[in-house]
């Protein structure tokens, strides 16, 4: 069973972000970086905001991050997540990696979640072909 109930929208990859999701399908969390100057960026976008190059490389993120902020969601704004509330949405930062943040979830007791808490990547199977990066307390 995945963290959010079946029917929760899945990524629908587009020309700008397809590589991110191809990596996820292979259980690899990688962020886009500039192929010229190396500046990391997220979400994926066609041009480097630092040197304006369109060259791209993908850099694998560390498996550990920190909770930058979080909310415990009690209101099911989408019908699919009615069985899933309360659930935790968190902003995950990777302080030793770079200034990119990922929206994700913290698996486990919502009451245990705190800002700055260290968390570890886990892969959550959401379809036959797709895994999503979620996190659990270290």
């Amino acid at each position, binding site marked *: 069973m995945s963290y959010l109930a079946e029917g929760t929208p899945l990524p629908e990859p587009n020309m700008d972000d397809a590589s991110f999701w191809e990596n996820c399908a292979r259980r690899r969390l990688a962020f886009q970086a500039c192929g010229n100057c190396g500046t990391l960026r997220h979400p994926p976008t066609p041009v480097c905001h630092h040197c304006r190059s369109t060259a791209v490389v993908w850099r694998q993120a560390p498996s550990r991050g920190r909770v930058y902020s979080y909310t415990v969601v009690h*209101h099911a704004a989408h019908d699919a997540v009615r069985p899933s509330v309360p659930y935790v949405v968190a902003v995950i930062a990777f302080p030793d990696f770079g200034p990119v943040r990922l929206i994700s979830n913290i698996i486990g007791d919502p009451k245990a979640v705190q800002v700055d808490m260290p968390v570890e990547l886990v892969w959550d199977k959401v379809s036959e072909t797709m895994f999503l990066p979620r996190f659990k307390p270290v």
Partner: protein
Amino acid sequence: MTDNARKACIVGVGESEYTRWGGIADRSQFQVACEAILAAISDAGLSPADIDGFTSYSNDANDANLLQVALGVPELRFAGMVWGGGGGGSCGAVSLATAAVESGQARTVVAFRALCQGQTRRFGRASKGRTHENFVNPFGLFSPPLMLALLVRRHMHLYGTTEEHLAEVAISTRANANRNPRAVMHKRPLTREIYFAARMIAEPLRLYDCCLESDGACAVIVTSRERARDLKQRPVEILAAAHGSGPGWGSGPLGSHNMPDDDYASTNSRRLAGDLFARAGVTPDDIDVAQIYDHFSGMVLMALEDYGFCGRGESGPFVAGGNVRWPNGKLPLNTAGGNLSEAYIHGFNHVAEGVRQIRGESTSQVADAELCLVSGGLGVAPTSGLILGRAS
């Protein structure tokens, strides 16, 4: 420097009735838009033949070209829309109208917003087409209260802001709505007990920390000081109007939360506020009353900091000290009841209330109000702001 005769003023304000979402079912959203605009034109003592421009924001569905047809506007000279959602362009629509009038591209422009969420979609529900939605929806981050709860939590972590501080914003705003017969929550007092007993939406935001979902429309008329002289109402001067964004905020709270670390627990208004006060030639201390976009109580706190009414991280104690209460606070806030308790007309009702304060017509009138700050939607990109004042 704009020459004096061409300086932009607001000379009319009008609106439809405001209801809960789904409350206007007897006529179309487009008709409601037309009615609010006609009310503003009439308030100004003008006729639709005098109008030559329309501005709006957030992809307002009531197109200028169709308004021209419906209202019988003989010649359209300016039609502009501020990009971006989340109400960020509310004051931006007025800044477009100001640009049109002061540059001479148009003479008399209607700035407006009309939305009937019962006829279109509820903003509090999940929807397709959100910014960077692949990085948001699959993780259950479906709607603005959830998205902005993340900023409020970070603000609490950094500065010790509390739920009591959030409650003060919601409760003081409701007290203003209770004096305003137009307000959806006019007859619904909000006590501390009711506030804390309400259900949690997305921690730390409870039900009454979140704005209403509404049906309604409002509009203002912008023209030059020279034309304003002959009109019915005492003109309200637009001392400064601005819309804009800091770096990275397009991937901000309504997207994947990748704005700069230094800015995260803020409203994306700090830079814009500096421009606005400098161009108006006034300081935050000079402002008598403020209408600050209150989609969520906690964002109002951060805006008080970004606009310089208190120091960074000090907004909680600032509101706890009674400073935003009408009538005796240092800065009475959202005097018609705001998005939280008057109606969610995407913040354009804040512009209308700003005009009323300067005209002396508010139901929570601040005595001798000469300067009013109005903010657009907060934490989005672009955001916007206005400083309104009595015409000299």
